[in-house]
């Protein structure tokens, strides 16, 4: 195992003991950015969320969430090249940071733990 890998695992283990909290919408946005990889920018993130969840977020809500998550260190943004169909405006691409990944994993684990042993599709609660 390389030093870098050891360092990453130590970091993740450290953060997992006190994981940063994520709202439901923040989780959705982070997962969409993770799915899109290198091509995650405003339009594609909105489209991905719409395609996967059936609800398209308002642009204002999406940009505010992305800004807030960038401030918290969950995502990083970089600038693309200006394109003519955008009136010469550059795209702002997003990538999920290690801290963001840890936050998503932690939030999803919490859901998994809560779902464990529940029979949602049968029984008295069906």
């Amino acid at each position: 195992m390389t030093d870098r890998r050891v360092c990453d695992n130590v970091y993740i283990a450290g953060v997992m003991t006190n994981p940063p909290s994520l709202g439901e919408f923040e989780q959705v946005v982070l997962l969409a950015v993770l799915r899109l990889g290198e091509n995650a920018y405003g339009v594609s993130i909105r489209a991905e969320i719409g395609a996967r969840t059936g609800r398209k977020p308002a642009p204002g809500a999406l940009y505010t969430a992305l800004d807030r998550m960038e401030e918290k260190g969950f995502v990083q943004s970089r600038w693309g090249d200006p394109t003519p169909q955008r009136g010469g405006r550059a795209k702002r691409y997003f990538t999920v940071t290690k801290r963001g990944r840890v936050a998503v994993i932690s939030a999803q684990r919490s859901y998994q733990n809560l779902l464990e042993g529940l029979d949602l599709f049968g029984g008295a609660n069906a």
Partner: protein
Amino acid sequence: MPNAVCAEWLIARFTDRRRAAAAVGDLLEVAAEQGPLWFWSSVAGIVLSLTWRRLVALLAAFLCLSLLRTFPMPVLAPLHGIPTAHKVPENWRPFFVTLDKFGMLLWIAAPYAAICYGFRDKLSQLLLVASAIATTIIFYWWIPAVASTAFALGIGVLIFSVAAAKPRRALLAVGVALGVGFCGVQFMLHLWQEYLALFPLSATGFSLSANSLPLLAVAIQTAACGWMHRFVRRALQRGPEIESTA
């Protein structure tokens, strides 16, 4: 095609220019299918989502300051008919006058930071604790147990903040923000006195301290809080290198 330059200018009033340009670029991509009505409603939505929290925070800061000003401060005891027992001793007056001024600034800064940045933010937490301690001392200095507990709590918070890295940055930010607020308000008052000396306005009945000073104090103090919050954020983001790598 919608007037993208106008939309970009509008959004750039509330965020930085590059982010505004990227947002408008995104809207332009989709506006070809959705039409100008969708474009402009989205621009309005972006502006609203960028500003609502700050507007509510500014209003709350102003209301909190106005609320504090309705309570007679013990340092002004002879003026407001406060019981003599609560009157600040003469040799403590300079301390209490200064504390009153900082207390007012804290009552602006604490609600603003709590609404704008949330209760988990270190700057908000420190401002809320500081305003609670300052308020307790200002109004209950004459009860020895309360005053000594508040002083002890204040010293404890100070020691805790200096000892750890994150609270230390927040403490520095609070100190600078309050310093800027204090100096700013004093400077405005000084300018006003100079102005009055040149152009006496007493006949109009206009008083800066009664009419405009609360608004000016809110504007100066909240701006200082905003700058210092950015400083704390940037310092925390720099952090250890491993935290920022993808």
